[in-house]
């Protein structure tokens, strides 16, 4: 349980080792690089690596694109990259072979991307043809080319008229004002969507007159006339669509044919990402004509090893720098295997700064206990612990963060089981319900008895216990603050801010316990001897005096100092609300148990004989699954809250910067060094 000590290193080496040094550091992943300001020295320059970086980023993007296409056109189980994704373990030798083969993979990816491009093009053509077909479809019955304008003596007018119109009406409209019998034939081809497609043939010398007549009736020529007979044209479009679809199918097959290369593409994607990162770094480090400089943080215990490696292997000059302001140092935590599982909880609040306490291990204990009290059902605890254990065992190469998280919830599951048996909850009252319903146990006889007591029978008693646990939690927080104050050799601060509060609060509690008020609330009576009462009074008054006089000790003005002290004393109300906040341990614990019982009751209410058993099983599985999910969420959220707000509120202020070493940031693979 500690914040790892850091050491600032500076490395100066010959440029010819630049690649090897960077690669070594990247695969060791122990150094966080910071970039020295080079404006001071005109000799030093930074390299422009933007081009190379962009190139490799683009390569990575093409591999990612290819992977996405494979997922679309050749889906397989290997596509899953969910929460429990395991990175593939690749031995260094295999990795090197694959990298040597990279041109081959680049060609394959180019092939995939060009196939995708022609798929998109074909889809465009299909879309265009489909639109053309739709606009042609009203003309499907026309048996002359749509571009016909007439013969030697006749004119042919092809077009549409809005609304419906019969051939007779059309004839009448077209031949208006023409000498009888008018030399006009009027045909209606089709009526679709409030428009009528018509063909009118007349004598050429009368064409103008007829067209004017038709225009008066709303006639217009087609906006996109096509050559040829519409039917033939539609057939041509159909053939084109079919051939495009065939081509799309072929191209899809081309892409799907690379389905087996998925793993290689992932490896290449990671490889190019690593390379892009390296070039990104290269662009930031100061270099002169012959040497380059690196500066950064390493864990202090590894500083010597790295420095030795650099000097002996690469002939570099390594200097241990002055660490400077602790606030600038990156923070890494070191905890034992069990406590480490709670680091992610701490991280999501914020890391401690250097010189401060890492509360992970202490928090772990409270986290697991409180989670268990809130979920508090042995059945649920067993399910949770088993589920986490199975995933952790089966998926060994999972993301370490997720793995630690699951391990934490394995312990929370164990704690839940413990508290479940303490409260007598196993899937609610499932055992009792089953025994009463099917095994003829008299309904007033409990089967699974709580080891401690059932919360619903005596909620006040449990409430008192919850508040007590809360008080212990808060006092631990105050204690950590005290430890930090002492470590900073601030004895006055320790006495006035820590001891004063302990005295004041303990005194108040011991004054409160024997009163009638407390007895009537909790149903517990405490009989203290008289000296305890006096001691409590002394503690309370003494503590109050210390706080009153010492809280504002950095003020010279005594009136102001006392006023500040009085204000601080008023902070006892925040202690009250903090302690009461732990009543959620009771409330959420009751919630799980009561809802679980309700599920069991509903399950055993209906039917008879085997049907009843089946109904019970179905309701049991559905109901309890839902209840686990919703209550585990509640327990998780509120356990976090108790840590973040109540516990951390007493001593912890984050503000540490996470240690981010220069390493291979891979998404799919993990390279194993051959030994």
């Amino acid at each position, binding site marked *: 349980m500690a914040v790892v000590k850091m050491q600032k290193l500076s490395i100066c080496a010959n440029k010819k080792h630049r690649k090897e040094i960077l690669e070594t550091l990247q695969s060791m992943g122990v150094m966080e690089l910071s970039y020295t300001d080079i404006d001071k020295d005109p000799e030093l320059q930074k390299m422009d690596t933007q081009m190379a970086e962009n190139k490799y980023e683009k390569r990575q993007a093409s591999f990612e694109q290819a992977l996405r296409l494979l997922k679309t056109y050749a889906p397989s189980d290997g596509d899953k990259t969910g*929460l429990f994704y395991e990175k593939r373990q690749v031995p260094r030798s295999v990795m090197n072979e694959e990298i040597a083969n990279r041109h081959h993979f680049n060609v394959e990816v180019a092939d995939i991307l060009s196939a995708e491009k022609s798929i998109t093009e074909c889809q465009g053509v299909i879309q265009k043809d489909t639109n053309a077909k739709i606009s042609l479809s009203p003309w499907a019955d026309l048996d002359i080319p749509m571009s016909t304008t007439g013969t030697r003596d006749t004119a042919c007018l092809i077009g549409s008229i809005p609304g419906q119109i019969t051939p007779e009406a059309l004839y009448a409209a077209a031949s208006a004002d023409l000498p009888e019998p008018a030399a006009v034939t009027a045909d209606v081809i089709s009526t679709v969507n409030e428009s009528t497609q018509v063909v009118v043939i007349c004598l050429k010398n009368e064409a103008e007159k007829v067209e004017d007549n038709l225009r008066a009736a709303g006639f217009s020529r087609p906006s996109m006339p096509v050559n040829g007979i519409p039917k033939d044209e539609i057939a041509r479009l159909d053939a084109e669509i079919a051939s495009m679809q065939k081509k799309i199918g072929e191209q899809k097959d081309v892409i799907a044919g690379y389905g087996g290369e998925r793993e290689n593409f992932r490896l290449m994607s990671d490889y190019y990402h690593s390379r892009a990162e390296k070039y990104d770094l290269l662009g930031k480090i100061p270099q002169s004509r012959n040497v380059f400089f690196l500066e950064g943080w390493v864990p202090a215990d590894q500083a010597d090893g790295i420095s030795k490696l650099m000097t002996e292997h690469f002939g570099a000059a390594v200097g241990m720098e002055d660490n400077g302001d602790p606030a600038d140092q990156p923070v890494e935590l070191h905890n034992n295997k069990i406590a480490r599982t709670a680091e992610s*909880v701490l*991280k*999501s*609040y914020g890391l401690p700064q250097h010189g401060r306490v890492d509360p992970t291990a202490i928090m772990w204990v409270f986290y697991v206990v409180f989670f268990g009290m809130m979920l508090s059902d042995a059945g649920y605890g067993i399910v949770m612990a088993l589920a986490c254990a199975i995933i952790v065992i089966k998926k060994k190469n999972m993301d370490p963060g997720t793995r630690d998280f699951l391990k934490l919830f394995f312990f929370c599951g164990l704690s839940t089981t413990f508290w479940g048996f303490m409260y007598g909850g196993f899937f609610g009252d499932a055992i009792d319900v089953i025994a009463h319903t099917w095994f003829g146990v008299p309904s007033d006889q409990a089967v699974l008895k709580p080891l401690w007591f059932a919360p*619903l029978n005596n*909620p*006040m008693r449990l*409430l008192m216990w919850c508040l007590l646990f809360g008080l212990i939690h808060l006092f631990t927080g105050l204690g950590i603050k005290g430890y930090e104050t002492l470590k900073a050799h601030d004895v006055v601060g320790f006495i006035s801010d820590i001891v004063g509060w302990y005295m004041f609060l303990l005194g108040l509690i011991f004054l409160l316990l024997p009163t009638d008020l407390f007895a009537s609330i909790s149903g517990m009576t405490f009989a203290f001897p008289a000296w305890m009462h006096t001691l409590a009074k002394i503690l309370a008054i003494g503590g109050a005096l210390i706080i009153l006089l010492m809280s504002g000790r950095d003020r010279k003005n005594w009136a102001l100092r006392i006023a500040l002290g009085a204000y601080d004393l008023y902070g006892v109300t925040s202690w009250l609300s903090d302690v*009461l*906040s732990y*009543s*959620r341990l*009771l*409330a*959420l614990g*009751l*919630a799980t148990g*009561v*809802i679980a*019982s*309700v599920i069991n*009751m509903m399950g055993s209410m209906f039917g008879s004989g085997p049907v009843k058993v089946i109904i019970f099983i179905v309701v049991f599985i559905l109901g309890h699954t839902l209840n686990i999910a*919703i209550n585990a*969420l*509640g327990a998780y*959220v*509120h356990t*976090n*809250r108790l840590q*973040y*707000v109540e516990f951390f509120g007493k001593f912890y202020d984050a503000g540490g910067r996470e240690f981010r070493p220069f390493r291979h940031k891979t998404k799919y693979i993990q390279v194993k060094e051959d030994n």
Partner: protein
Amino acid sequence: MSMGMVFALMGAALATALPGVGSAWGVGMAGQAAAGVVSEDPDQFAKVLLLQLLPGTQGIYGLLVTFITLSQIGILGGDPVQDTATGMLYLFACLPIAIVGLISAYHQGRTSVASIGLVAKKPDQFGKAMLFPAMVETYAILALLISILAVNGI
């Protein structure tokens, strides 16, 4: 059936109905925000789903009080309420979770919406984002506790 039974059942019904309305409201609002985030960044699904669910607990707390009440007033167990005064007692015992559940679920929903926005912009701040709606829930938990203690004590 006495008048007391009417009041007691009214309390039990309100304890589920009002917080249920509040939770539906809150979860609904948060769900819309969550769907918006997922449309941009599907990886955030699990996180925003958790945040969406937070205002849903009030409905469950209400259900809890209803069941404890029903199991005492002769509907799911216990003895029927005989006099009006006892019925009123049940009604008032149910009111804290009914009222606070409704209002806190609504406000928790609004806070969840804001937190979902936070996660959309800074996914690594999930721990803090989760805390803001959880603060609102405190008051629902306190109300739940008082309702349980009161119903249990009648």
